């Protein structure tokens, strides 16, 4: 439906038959992306319907934001569907959360904030930050990170090495 620019034009102009074909073509992709977040027992159809509603409401405001020249429609729709599924989970969690389940620290009038060492914002480059996060916070392997960032494994190792050198220099200076 959206490979051809004139089709996309008809879609956001509200052409009924183009919308119907769009729904048939992407309902499976959207359902799969939602299912990945909420699980097979979740309300997949309701959330997928919400995705379609988001796309077309307010005169197709969200769909108009899509630009076929910048990204593929399947990639973009997957992100939109995941976002809708996370919103749904968050709403359900908030609705179900009782006062008893709220941790005491959240209810404290003066919560105790641990003292945190300050670092300058630009200490590490964004890619160094991301690779450290994936290695140490997510505990991902070098090969997985390389796949995720579409770079080779050597680049991951090298970036990690340079990041550690910077951190050692910074914290060594300040200790």
């Amino acid at each position, binding site marked *: 439906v959206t490979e051809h620019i004139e089709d996309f034009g008809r879609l956001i102009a509200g052409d009924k038959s183009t919308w119907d074909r769009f729904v048939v073509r992407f309902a499976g*992709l*959207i359902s799969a992306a939602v299912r990945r977040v909420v699980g097979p027992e979740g309300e997949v159809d309701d959330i*997928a319907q919400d995705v379609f509603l988001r796309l077309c409401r307010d005169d197709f405001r969200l769909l108009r934001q899509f630009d076929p020249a910048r990204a593929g429609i399947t990639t973009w729709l997957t992100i939109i569907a995941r976002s809708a599924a996370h919103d749904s989970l968050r709403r359900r969690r908030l609705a179900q959360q009782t006062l008893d389940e709220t941790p005491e620290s959240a209810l404290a009038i003066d919560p105790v904030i641990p003292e945190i*060492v300050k670092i300058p914002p630009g200490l590490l480059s964004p*890619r160094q930050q991301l690779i450290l*996060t994936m290695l140490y916070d997510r505990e991902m392997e070098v090969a997985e990170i390389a796949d995720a960032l579409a770079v080779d494994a050597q680049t991951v190792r090298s970036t990690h090495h340079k990041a*550690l050198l910077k951190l050692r220099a910074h914290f060594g200076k300040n200790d």
Partner: protein
Amino acid sequence: MADPPFDRDPALARRWLDAAAALPAPDTPDALTLAAYAEGRLDDAAAAAVEAALAADPALLDALLTLRQPAETTIPSAALIQSAQALVGMAAGDSGGGQAAILPFRRNATDQRRPAIGSTRRWLAWGAVAAGLMIVSTAGFNLGMSTAEAFNPPAATDLTGDLLDPSGLAGDDSG
């Protein structure tokens, strides 16, 4: 050039992660920018901004990692297709290919085809049925009366005349 040694330093990385959590969160990229990043379509500066956000936002990183997995699709339910298609309906007087109207959420598609109560066509149909019933009942009544008269002809004597001129009755009595 030889690979740099890959020595993990969890303690140092944890120190940085804790400190980085206190930094102001970078702007979250929109879905289209994240999709463009995932497809490798951003320039270095734009990609660095997305990577900074990915390092700081676990949900965003999850979204990217999902996009890196093989695309999934499921067979959507017929109910989802029907309800999603019904979100965009034909506007009044539109004969196709024109502007569409957004219908309320979860409206049944069959409801659109049902004519509204009070429409001219419905009233005309009911009027025709009522007129037909009147013609049939009048014809039936007349036919019944004719049959009754054929089997039960009215008496030859005109009793009314006797009542107006009682002399005739008196004559009978005398005979």
